[in-house]
């Protein structure tokens, strides 16, 4: 076989690495986690609300609820503010200032999550505790910090979508007598909708997957949370907190939590792909 | 059934290039129709015709650059020195070194002037500095560019003017020591002085090479070419000596094109 052919085959092999890694991840996580789900029963694993590893009780419903509320909260915080910032950067300030702000926002997105968690712990948690009572370590704190963390993602991608719109959209609307704001609200934002939605889904993925910052500020109670001031765990923090010392069934239960997380993320990913394909059509 | 070369005429046996029953397709679109052509060595053959008549396709199917495009296919044969270039034992890099090509836009590579010209020879395995310098100088002289750049061979080729870049491309092609030169509208976008100097080099070069030229316009063809083929929509309508084609064209369409009735 000629040298060129050998090279081509080698590159093909290299290129298969990412799908192979994905397969490996799925295989090993499932291999560890599925037997436990089988043992405990899918229903009682997903819907059981008692997590007592020492008593062999593995119900992760409180964590599912915790993940849900924290993610929802982060979207409530992050989406309006993020889109507002995107509009701000794209339409309301001079391009030169935007050019300076953009890399700074990107930098904020590169800051490790533990820094945001730290800030949440030092500043936000006492603030909530003093203003609203409760432990302070709460879903509220988590939502706020998580919302701030996903802002750079939502801002960058939404702003890119807005900037990618043909200038004729804006010029056309303005020349028909629309005000600037009407143009933004009725023409530009709807046209950039698919990009904005993509950014939201991406942000949601980041929010669901966040671990360390949430460990620092959610309080990590294993009971079903009943208000936004409650302490809670998410699927991720459940793993992150106990993995250090878990063994046997307990450890497998954490892998099982990972399996559930895996499915949720894959579902989100597929949703994102479908929407982005529809948007392009 | 393909015509075997031994059965065709004595003239064709001597031809540098012999094209027989050649059709070329981009997918299902037939870009070249039933081409039969033989080109003698050491002459300038002009490929004349309006846009989209298959001229560039013809050149690129000769050095098989068309192989890079997905979905191309052909029927018929092209022989160079009696060797079928689409045959299985043909080495593509070697074929492309035998047929040098210059494109219609100045395509200097983002390298120094020296490295641009030395690019092809390096692929052949040539790395000895003195040999490379020799080849670079010789090629730049043949392309009438040496005097202008000999003091700045290490500077970036992208800083040259359009006319200089195009002559660089010619030098680059000559450095391969090819047998056949293919030039696709080499003077498009160039000023009259650069054009004249390139045309002058071509006339000198035909002593050593066989040249296929897609001229920028009819006047260029009449200035420079020995023989001309007139192409229309993928078919070669007429072929003959430049003098014959321009003064007494046999085909009405050729006459119309030459007199400017369409273009």
């Amino acid at each position, binding site marked *: 076989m000629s040298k060129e052919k050998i090279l081509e085959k080698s590159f093909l092999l290299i290129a298969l690495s*990412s799908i192979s890694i994905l397969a490996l991840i799925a295989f090993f996580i499932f291999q560890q986690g599925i037997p436990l789900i089988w043992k405990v029963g899918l229903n009682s694993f997903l819907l059981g609300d008692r997590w007592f590893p020492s008593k062999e009780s593995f119900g992760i419903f409180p964590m599912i609820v915790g993940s849900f509320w924290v993610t929802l909260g982060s979207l409530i915080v992050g989406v309006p503010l993020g889109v507002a910032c995107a509009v701000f950067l794209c339409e309301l300030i001079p391009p030169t200032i935007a050019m300076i702000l953009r890399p700074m926002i990107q930098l904020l997105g590169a800051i*490790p999550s533990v820094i945001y968690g730290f800030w949440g712990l030092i500043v936000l948690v006492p603030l909530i505790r003093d203003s609203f009572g409760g432990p302070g370590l709460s879903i509220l704190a988590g939502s706020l910090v998580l919302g701030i963390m996903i802002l750079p993602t939502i801002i960058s991608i939404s702003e890119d979508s807005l900037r990618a719109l043909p200038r004729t959209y804006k010029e056309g609307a303005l020349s028909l007598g629309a005000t600037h704001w009407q143009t933004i609200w009725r023409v530009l934002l709807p046209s950039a909708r698919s990009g904005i939605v993509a950014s939201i889904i991406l942000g949601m993925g980041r929010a669901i997957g966040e671990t*360390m910052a949430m460990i*620092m500020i959610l309080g990590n109670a294993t009971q079903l949370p009943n208000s936004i001031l409650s302490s809670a765990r998410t699927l991720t923090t459940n793993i992150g907190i106990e993995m250090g010392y878990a063994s046997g069934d307990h450890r497998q239960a954490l892998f099982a939590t990972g399996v559930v997380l895996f499915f949720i993320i894959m579902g989100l990913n597929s949703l994102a792909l479908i929407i982005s394909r529809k948007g392009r059509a | 059934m393909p015509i075997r070369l031994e059965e065709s005429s004595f003239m064709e046996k001597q031809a540098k290039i012999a094209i027989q029953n050649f059709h070329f397709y981009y997918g299902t679109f037939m870009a070249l129709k039933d081409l039969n052509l033989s080109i003698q060595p050491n002459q300038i053959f002009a490929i004349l015709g309006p846009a989209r008549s298959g001229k560039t396709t013809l050149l690129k199917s000769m050095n098989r*650059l068309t192989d890079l495009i997905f979905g191309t296919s052909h029927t018929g044969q092209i022989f160079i020195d009696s060797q079928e270039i689409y045959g299985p034992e043909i080495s593509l890099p070697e074929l492309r070194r035998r047929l040098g090509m210059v494109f219609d836009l100045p395509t200097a590579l983002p390298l120094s002037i020296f490295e641009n010209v030395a690019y092809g020879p390096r692929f052949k395995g040539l790395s000895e500095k003195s040999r490379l310098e020799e080849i670079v100088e010789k090629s730049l002289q043949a392309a009438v560019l040496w005097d202008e750049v000999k003091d700045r061979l290490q500077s970036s080729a992208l800083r040259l003017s359009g006319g200089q870049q195009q002559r660089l491309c010619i030098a680059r092609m000559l450095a391969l020591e090819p047998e056949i030169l293919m030039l696709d509208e080499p003077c498009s976008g160039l000023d009259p002085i650069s054009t004249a100097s390139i045309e002058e080099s071509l006339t000198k070069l035909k002593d050593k090479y066989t040249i296929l030229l897609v001229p920028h316009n009819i006047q260029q063809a009449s200035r420079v070419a020995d023989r001309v083929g007139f192409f229309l929509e993928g078919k070669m309508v007429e072929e003959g000596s430049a003098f014959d084609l321009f003064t007494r064209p046999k085909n009405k369409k050729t006459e119309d094109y030459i007199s400017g009735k369409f273009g």
Partner: protein
Amino acid sequence: MKISRHHTQGLAKGVIWVAAFSTLAVMFWILYQVLREGLPLLHPDFFIQAPRQMGRAGGIFPTIIGTIALTVVAIVIATPLGVGTAIFLQEYTRESGVSRVIRFGTDCLAGVPSIIFGLFGFVFFVIFLRMGWSILSGGLTLATMILPTIICTAEEAIKSVPYTYREVSFALGGTRWQTIRKMVLPNAFPGILTGVLLGVGRSVGETAAVILTAGSSFITPDSLFSPIRTMAVHFYILAREGISMEMAYATGAALILLILAINTVANWMMYRYAHKA
């Protein structure tokens, strides 16, 4: 009373201004706060000394080694794999079944949360391959995490090399590999380097996966098989265990400065690269 369009516009724009301004202000204030408390504590000793009293005093030297070591391992593994994948997708295939599968794998990998990578790295590298909690386990896990980023940026960089360069290279007798090596890769290099820097930034900041695979020792490592904590992990432990807020601030500030430096270099490269063309 009918509100005119101009009033609506004024109101809407005003709201956006306030929202955006305060959002950006809060985000920058977070950085500022950590830097304000932490920067004064950064003196040379901090960087050369090992932690003492579980981190209440001393410095972060071993964690710096750990951060560098893990990042180097991750980059050394992920870059050839990532660039090779990009070369294959851009130079050796068209859109086909194979390329779609590869892209699907890459996209999915990009979305996997870091804790899952941590679980995977633990069961695969630490346990199954018997590497234990180590720089190697941590670095390899990080490599799988940054692979999609490198593939993506490398593909963009390769795609941006003009087709004419390739065509000319082929016309001059180059084989496909020669063309890639001498024309495509050198011209795609700045873009690829940017991707590598992004991978570096991600490795530096990653915590969840690193704790589960590289351990949390703060003793200076002596081999690839030693466990070690990175700066980010050290910061997390200091903060969460409440060991020392001062040290946490200092470590956090150092972390932010490092990320700032990496990002600035990456941005500068992208800027220069975009303007060179």
